């Protein structure tokens, strides 16, 4: 090997690095590689740009040239004419009816903060469960979201001149979320308290939304707690006996509690709001959240029942699932609204929302049962046998070995059903309930002022539904990645 330094034509030091040619870096490279790599794709790019331009040139003037304050659609048109604008949305309908679209038209206006608070509390109830390992980060994001919400309300209130008070709740909750985040980051075992918050949430939300005395939800909760304690004691006699004893105890507490709550209807009471007065997007949200969370446990029980060796249980589950799956949801809703009235004695007012919740829950639990059955079927028999060989009984094996794996497999299916269910809640507009779609189709479009405004209203409905559904599906993908234990 010769000494390089002695050779005249060999450099003694490295050349400095040179920047790549301009065609091989930055925007140019990206554009050339992705948009204009060859003739066909170049034509496609140009075409796509033209189409985008065409769509935006129609949409943007409509959006930005819109009228936000007017008394009626005719007023809107006059304002547009006066301004000499060809197109422009009549968004004044949203300004005037926004609260109706969110809460329905009979919810007392001065009580809007109650469902709003319940809505803001919802992420606190679910974040602890949904982001097990990442609580600190999740709650930091939640704090930011709540702050943004508060800021939005402040801006909105400035514009409208009222409603500033609504910003207080998200501001307080932002601080709370930040505190939780900090605690979690410092390593405090906070999950236990978060789960307590989740367990409390349904009762708080009910009290906030429906109002009335705090005693009713309180006694329902106490009944469930006592039922659980009795179950724990009774479990010694076997799982089924424990469940039965727990149920009996719960019902006894409910009956006694119902009497006591009846005696003091004004104890710590909000103004009571009847189910009939619920409406708007709030109704979709109530139905969606309640029915999804109820149908999951029922679906699990049904799926397990369908696999049972005991013929009666198996037959009951199979008949239920197949019957409910064989009937359209809209039929069940009609039964809830119309047919039940014939069976119930005249004058009984069996709460309509409750009837609808029962029907939608039955419907979706049958679907979720089938999804979970798929998960159960996908487990290798070895898992069942391994559980048996460890000496676990049925309840233990199911709880500790079978379900955790089966549920993980079923996540995409469950989320699919949930998103579908949330959107299906708009079907209640057909049985004359005023959910978001019902509000738009009925009262708003039938008012003399706004008859004839479509795009603006349905666009707003899309803007309300899309983030929720998209959020659920993104979450499920994240969850799948988190729980992925396969060795691919």
């Amino acid at each position, binding site marked *: 090997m010769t000494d390089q330094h002695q050779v005249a034509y060999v450099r003694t030091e490295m050349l400095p690095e040179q920047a790549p040619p301009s065609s091989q870096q930055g925007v140019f490279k990206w554009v050339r590689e992705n948009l204009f790599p060859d003739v066909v794709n170049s034509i496609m790019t140009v075409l796509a740009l033209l189409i985008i331009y065409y769509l935006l040139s129609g949409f943007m003037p409509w959006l930005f040239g819109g009228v936000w304050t007017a008394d009626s*659609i*005719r007023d809107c*048109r006059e304002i547009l004419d006066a301004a000499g604008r060809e197109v422009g949305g009549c968004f004044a309908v949203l300004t*005037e*009816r926004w609260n*109706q679209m969110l809460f329905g*038209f*009979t919810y007392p*206006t001065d009580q809007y903060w109650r469902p709003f608070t319940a809505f803001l509390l919802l992420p606190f109830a679910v974040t602890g469960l949904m982001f097990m390992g990442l609580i600190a980060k999740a709650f930091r994001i939640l704090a930011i979201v709540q702050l943004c919400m508060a800021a939005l309300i402040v801006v909105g209130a400035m514009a409208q001149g009222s409603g500033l008070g609504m910003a207080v709740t998200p501001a307080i909750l932002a601080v709370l979320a930040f505190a939780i985040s900090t605690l979690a980051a410092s390593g405090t075992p906070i999950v236990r308290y978060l789960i307590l918050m989740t367990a409390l949430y349904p009762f708080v939300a*009910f009290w906030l939304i*429906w109002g*009335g005395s705090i005693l*009713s*939800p309180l*006694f*329902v909760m106490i009944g469930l707690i006592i039922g659980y304690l009795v179950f724990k004691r009774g479990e010694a006699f076997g799982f089924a006996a424990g469940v039965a004893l727990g149920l009996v105890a719960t*019902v006894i507490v*409910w*009956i006694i*509690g*119902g009497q006591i*709550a*009846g005696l003091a209807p004004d104890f710590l009471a909000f103004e*009571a709001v*009847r*189910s*009939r007065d619920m409406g708007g997007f709030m109704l979709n949200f109530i139905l969606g959240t309640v029915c999804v969370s109820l149908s999951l446990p029922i679906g699990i029980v049904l799926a397990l029942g369908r696999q049972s060796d005991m013929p009666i249980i198996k037959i009951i589950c199979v008949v239920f699932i197949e019957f409910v799956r064989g009937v359209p949801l809209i039929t069940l809703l*009609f039964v809830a*609204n*119309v*047919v039940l*009235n*014939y069976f*119930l*004695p*005249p*004058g*009984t*007012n*069996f*709460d309509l*929302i*409750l009837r609808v919740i029962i029907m939608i829950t039955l419907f979706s639990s049958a679907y979720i049962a089938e999804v979970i059955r798929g998960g159960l079927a996908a487990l290798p028999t070895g898992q069942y046998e391994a559980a048996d060989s460890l000496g676990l009984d049925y309840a233990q094996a199911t709880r500790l070995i079978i379900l955790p794996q089966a549920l993980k497999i079923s996540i995409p299916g469950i989320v699919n059903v949930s998103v579908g269910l949330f959107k299906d809640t708009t079907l209640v507009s*057909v*049985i*004359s309930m*005023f959910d978001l779609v*019902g509000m738009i*189709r*009925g*009262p*708003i*479009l*039938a*008012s*003399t*002022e706004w*008859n*004839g405004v*479509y795009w603006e209203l349905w666009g707003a409905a899309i803007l309300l539904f899309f983030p929720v559904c998209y959020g659920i599906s993104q979450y499920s993908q994240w969850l799948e990645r988190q729980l992925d234990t396969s060795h691919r």
Partner: protein
Amino acid sequence: MKNSLILGAMTVAGLAAGVATAGTLEDVQARGKLNCGVTTGLVGFAAPDANGEWQGFDVAVCRAVAAAVLGDASAVEFVPTTGKTRFTALASGEIDMLARNTTWTFSRDVDLKFEFTGVNYYDGQGFMVPADLGVTSAKELDGATVCIQTGTTTELNLADFFRTNNISYEPVPIETNSEAQPLYLEGACDVYTTDASGLAATRAAFENPGDHVVLPEIISKEPLGPLVRHGDNEWGDIVRWTLNALITAEELGVTSANMSDMMAGTNNPEINRLLGTEGTLGAMLGLDADWAAKALAVSGNYGEIFETNIGENTPIGLSRGLNAQWKNGGLIYSPPFR
């Protein structure tokens, strides 16, 4: 529901089953509220305004009955119903009366066991087409696509009309009037057919109403009126005569403006009987003597209600037409208050 205790509620439901129901009037008075079925929204006839208050031509009938029975026009629980749920709601007792632009037909009256208590609007089914289609008569509509509301009498009338004229059509079924408007404007159907009042309201909301014509043919009779269940004639009488009181008041010139003067007594005995300053008409119905006066105080007589909700000075702009008083050549006619 105030109490969330489902089990408790169901127990109560079971107990309530044993309680026999009294007459509708007693029920309403005991409840302190009139349950009145209305549409989920029909321009001019029933729709909640920005404050959530129900307004409209049919709503006014509900309020008048509530005022006559309970003395309070706001003591009404409006139960929104769709074309499909309205009859079951009435038959099952969920509502006391239905004022939901419902056509009085033989089968609804006899077979469904309802009692129509009069007619508050004489309607008829018409056709609307774009002016540039060049159609001047409904008989030229051979092969047209027609937007039609399902579950209504219009659907049946349409089939009858096209069959008798031996022409064909393609129906585009829709659920509500508000769905029909964009479909029609986008050209999804050549023709939109519904009651003439609905056509007028729809056309009035268009950006260029002049581009659309309502064809001269009215192919059906649609007497719209409030209805109650069979079997409680006393209650039916109250609803019937409340509506008649509104109509008679217009005929006799009693308005919300001059009513208080007339309450002092007039030299027209029929006005006196109507307003309860003479005779015992109220007692015969089981109501206060001034029941009709209370009903009239809500939003005036029939003519006033018509003008404020759907008349020519509203955006809907319906002329009285068939719905003028019989003296002015219309069909609105009340039996005498005697």
